């Protein structure tokens, strides 16, 4: 006999609202169904009403952890549309911040993995060490979370000798700590026993379900936008694509720790080879009618922005495909035939950012389960028809 258990949209195991409906047979999950749309904010529609400059800050606020990823992906696309080439030093600083962001995101994930596995001292130590990279970001950009370092045509803040020295010194500490965590993450018996074999995703499934980022690389597929389709200055920077063959949560942990060590090398290379010159060029206020796709390797995977301009100072369409959305299909595959107790761990292993991925709403018929496209006016009629027989809550007050 099978039961359906709803996990979410509000659940202590989830950090953000998402509905997972699992069909269980005893303790084993046989079927999983994701329900999205609890965190939709209409960012894409809002982007159509703001100018190119204003949209940098809107894109930055799609996500807190990977704020630089979305802003950089957008800015790269807009630079292609406006046909401007940012100066070398600007690109170096931009990539430097993006690598620092990868370090802070992976350290954060490592802590969360420790927490979900029940290893809370690991979680606290990792997060304490994450403060080092947060401090670096704060000295470079002025703020800890929304760096706002991007401008169309370059970056907004320059680096001086003192900051470079500070970053290099802090990097030594981080490298030492990460090597220790690598040792710990792969040798601590209870931690390894909790992670190994959980959330299995075979190499073929990972490719078929279009998984991205560390989830894909942990299944043994060396795919990284930085290597496959180098943007900015990644073609000059030496680094390796890290993979693991265990296809489980342990593999995803190992890939992320390896990527941390690679990121330290990249940061060191960028700082030692920082070219001199201007950091930005002047950008026009308008872009010619055109369309562009921008790809970026965010800490969680490949991030895609599609931008269409119509000659005005505002985008006509801005579509964001966040890495979490690409990983949902793989997550369902991972959840199947696993235990209920592994749901938070498997979910955390893709490093989900629900609000990144909440982009559009699909109209699904509850009876026939068929999707259809409706116009705004018919949607309005539908809502009026549904709400006609309901009594109005006259005493209800708007919270403000």
């Amino acid at each position, binding site marked *: 006999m099978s039961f359906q258990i709803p996990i979410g949209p509000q659940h202590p195991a989830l950090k953000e609202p998402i509905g997972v409906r699992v069909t269980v047979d005893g303790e084993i999950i046989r079927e999983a169904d994701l329900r999205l749309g609890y965190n939709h904010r209409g960012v894409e529609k809002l982007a159509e009403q703001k100018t190119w400059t204003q949209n940098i800050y809107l894109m930055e606020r799609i996500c807190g952890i990977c704020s630089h990823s979305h802003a950089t992906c957008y800015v790269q696309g807009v630079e292609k549309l406006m046909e401007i080439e940012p100066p070398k030093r600007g690109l170096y600083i931009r990539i430097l911040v993006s690598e620092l962001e990868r370090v802070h995101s992976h350290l954060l994930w490592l802590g969360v993995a420790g927490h979900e596995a029940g290893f809370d001292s690991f979680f606290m130590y990792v997060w304490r060490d994450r403060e080092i990279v947060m401090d670096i970001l704060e000295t470079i950009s002025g*703020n800890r979370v929304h760096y706002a370092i991007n401008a169309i045509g370059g970056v907004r803040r320059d680096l001086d000798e003192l900051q470079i020295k500070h970053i290099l010194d802090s990097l030594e500490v981080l490298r030492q700590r990460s090597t220790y965590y690598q040792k710990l993450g792969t040798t601590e018996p209870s931690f390894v026993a909790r992670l190994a074999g959980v959330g299995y995703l075979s190499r073929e499934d990972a490719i078929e379900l279009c998984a991205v980022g560390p989830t894909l690389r942990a299944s043994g597929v060396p795919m990284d936008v930085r290597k496959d389709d180098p943007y900015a200055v990644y073609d000059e920077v030496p680094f390796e694509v890290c993979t693991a063959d265990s296809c489980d949560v342990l593999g995803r942990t190992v890939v992320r720790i390896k990527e941390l060590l690679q990121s330290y090398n990249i940061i060191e290379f960028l700082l030692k080879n920082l070219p001199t010159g201007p950091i930005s060029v002047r950008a026009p206020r308008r872009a010619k009618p055109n369309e562009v796709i921008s790809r970026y390797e965010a800490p969680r995977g490949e991030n895609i922005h599609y931008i269409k301009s119509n000659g005005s100072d505002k985008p006509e369409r801005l579509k964001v495909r966040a890495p979490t959305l690409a990983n949902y299909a793989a997550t369902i595959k991972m959840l199947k035939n696993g235990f209920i107790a592994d749901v938070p761990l498997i979910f955390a292993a893709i490093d989900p950012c629900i609000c990144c991925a909440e982009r559009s709403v699909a109209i699904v018929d509850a009876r026939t389960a068929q999707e259809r496209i409706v116009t705004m006016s018919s949607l309005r009629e539908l809502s009026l028809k549904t709400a006609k027989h309901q009594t109005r809550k006259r005493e209800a007050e708007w919270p403000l």
Partner: protein
Amino acid sequence: MKLGVFIPELLRHLFKKPATVDYPFQKLTVPPEFRGSPYLRPELCIACRACERDCPAEAIEITVTNEAEKKFNMVIHNDRCIHCAQCVDSCPTDAMQMDNLFEISDYDRHNMKKRWDFVRAVVKPKAETKS
């Protein structure tokens, strides 16, 4: 693989100082490039409205109070401000500046409005910034 590989690290931390600070009594300093709240230096403002146009949160409002005397009125809605400092970048005369205060919360959002009434500066922007 052996048990208890984490214990030496745990014991070492018994004798370490705490990583956090006792916040309301002890404060960390903010970095020099910290983006606090924007403020206006009315003596430099040429009322070009670049900040109003580029503000992503529509937190800046400039209205003409007297066309003949070139009197302007500027309101910065700090409750809407997202502290991105785009107004500072957009300003051609350095009239917009950022302070470094971070304890700016209030019980009422209307208290967070900042207001300036000023006469438009007629000096050339380049000459004014040098002095």
